[in-house]
């Protein structure tokens, strides 16, 4: 069935709300407005204001309240408008949600799901465009997901809700309009990375909003005789090392593609793991394509230049064969 990422996400929300009375959605403008990215459009009419709960502009308090409600037996889905604003709630996510199980000696679970948009590409400048999922992915105690396909947009939410620990879901804002084929039946797991395009000469390892660009780069490389394999990490914490290492061992070359800033990027972490676990499988140094180290500029040509692009990925991959 053809669907968009946004519709798939909405179907997932609707299913979660319909099947479990403990589930409710809260966040800024999720109700009357219909969701900043229209993901929750129509759900207020269907489920009412108690379960599609508009919040004031209080990221710290409503994310914290989501954590408290999860401790209190509910299964809240908290929508934060963008990862940029989630920094206002970082304390609750990092100092409370992620720590409560361990700090209490295993007595408390925090089964909250926190969704947020991430990423650039819409000319909305520096305070609305950054990718900071690598920050969250460095914190023990939470799971971090990055659905990049309609199937994952449809499937990951229910798996996240079933998880007893806090789960943060990053939805790249450029993906909402993307159309794709939703397989019947669709399947879900929130454990493994996936091969999105099999190949044998270079591993292109990416996730989220960079997946379509990477697949495009793989097609461009194919025309030049380079058979790229594309790995979608999907789960940013805990990382699925095995799928990455299998691909690297097969292709013997790898490029990491990631929209976070290069320094301390998620790509850097994956590279470190490859060096630790598969160094002797490599025929060339590792390469990465990340965001340039600038606050995201507004002007279109500048924004495009700051971001990973298919041409940059192709150049990086070809560089490994020089």
């Amino acid at each position, binding site marked *: 069935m053809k669907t968009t990422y946004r519709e798939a996400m909405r179907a997932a929300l609707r299913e979660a709300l319909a099947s479990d009375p403990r589930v409710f959605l809260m966040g800024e403008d999720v109700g009357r407005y219909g969701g900043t990215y229209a993901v929750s459009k129509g759900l207020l009419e269907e489920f009412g204001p108690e379960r599609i709960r508009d919040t004031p502009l209080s990221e710290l308090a409503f994310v*914290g309240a989501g954590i*408290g409600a999860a401790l209190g037996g509910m299964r809240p889905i908290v929508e934060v408008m963008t990862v940029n604003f989630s920094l206002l709630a970082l304390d609750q996510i990092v100092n409370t949600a992620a720590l409560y199980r361990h700090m209490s000696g295993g007595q408390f679970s925090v089964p909250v799901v926190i969704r947020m948009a991430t990423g650039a590409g819409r000319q909305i400048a520096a305070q609305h465009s950054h990718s900071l999922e690598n920050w969250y992915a460095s914190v023990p105690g939470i799971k971090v997901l990055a659905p990049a396909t309609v199937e994952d947009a449809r499937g990951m939410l229910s798996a996240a809700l079933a998880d007893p620990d806090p789960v943060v879901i990053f939805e790249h804002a450029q993906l909402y309009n993307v159309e794709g084929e939703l397989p019947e039946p669709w399947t879900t797991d929130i454990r493994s990375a996936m091969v999105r395009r099999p190949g044998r000469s270079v591993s292109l390892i990416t996730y989220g909003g960079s997946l379509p660009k990477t697949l495009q780069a793989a097609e461009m490389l194919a025309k030049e005789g380079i058979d790229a394999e594309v790995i979608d990490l999907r789960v940013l914490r805990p990382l699925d090392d095995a799928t990455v290492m299998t691909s690297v061992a097969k292709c013997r070359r790898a490029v990491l593609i990631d929209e976070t800033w290069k320094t301390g990027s998620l790509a850097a972490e994956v590279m470190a793991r490859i060096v630790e676990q598969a160094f002797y499988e490599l025929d060339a140094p590792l390469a990465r394509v990340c965001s340039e180290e600038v606050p995201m500029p507004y002007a279109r040509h500048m924004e495009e230049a700051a971001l990973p692009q298919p041409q940059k990925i192709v150049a990086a991959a070809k560089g490994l064969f020089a």
Partner: protein
Amino acid sequence: MTIAPPPSGPVPWNSEFALGMVHDMLRIRRMEERAAELYGEQKIRGFLHLYIGEEAVAVGALHALAPEDNIVATYREHGHALVRGMPMRTIMAEMYGKRAGCSRGRGGSMHLFDAKLRLYGGNAIVAAGLPLAVGLALADKLQGIRRVTACFFGEGAMAEGAFHESMNLAALWRVPALFCCENNLYAMGTALARSESQTDLCVKAGSYGVPTLKVDGQDIVAVHQAAMQAQQHVREGKGPFFVEFQTYRYRAHSMFDPELYRDKKEVEEWKTRGPLHTFTARLKAERKLTEQQFLALDAEVAKEVEDAVAFAEAAEWEPVEDLTKDVTAA
């Protein structure tokens, strides 16, 4: 703040209840005095925030609540855990960092948790417990559970954005949350007047449309009465309530604090208002307590403390192989 005259007037409790209150205050006092010694002996490490001087607040307020209520506390929570029903042995073992502690030595003095007692910490980020309490109360409201979530915090928390955001959410959604501000006048070393443009805390809280009460936190009778009134309001579904308990910390903020920020005379003055001795004096004057009874209680508590210390001493360490256990469920 001018120091109020010592509490007076008849104690509206029978001897048994009154003795129970003395007993709980004594248990906190003696446990913490011993903890301070153990800190000196390096048996207890890290931070240790003593509640000495403030005991009437936890004892009076928690005795106004029901066993099924939720409690959210701060890093100065030994007393709350003890009064709530956590065995002294378990608290002491946690302070020692032993496996028999409530958090298996993962938390320490600042992170006492007990799922069965519905004690949700032991939260050491100032004001971070407030959003959590709003959420716990919201969960109860959504599930139709008639329960109060009591959230304890210091006046220092009221300078945090989390306080304001939480009061707004709690009032907006009319959740059953009871906000218990333990105003001990100092946010670590910063006096209230040096950190707040509005030093009347009830005015701050009241600006959100939340009903408030200001009460002498050194008077356990007043504390209990205020908490009874507040919890009833919350339990009846009338929305959140804010109580300011005016109290004073006799010891340093933590064991690292040289107390350069306050006058020794001020501390001595507040000590004349000690919750324990003023209350026992009242009871004695009303012939509800004899010196003999008090000494017997104190001896009983001393035994409990020594038993807790012996238990913690003998308890085992968590094996290092379990270091990464309980980070996530799987």
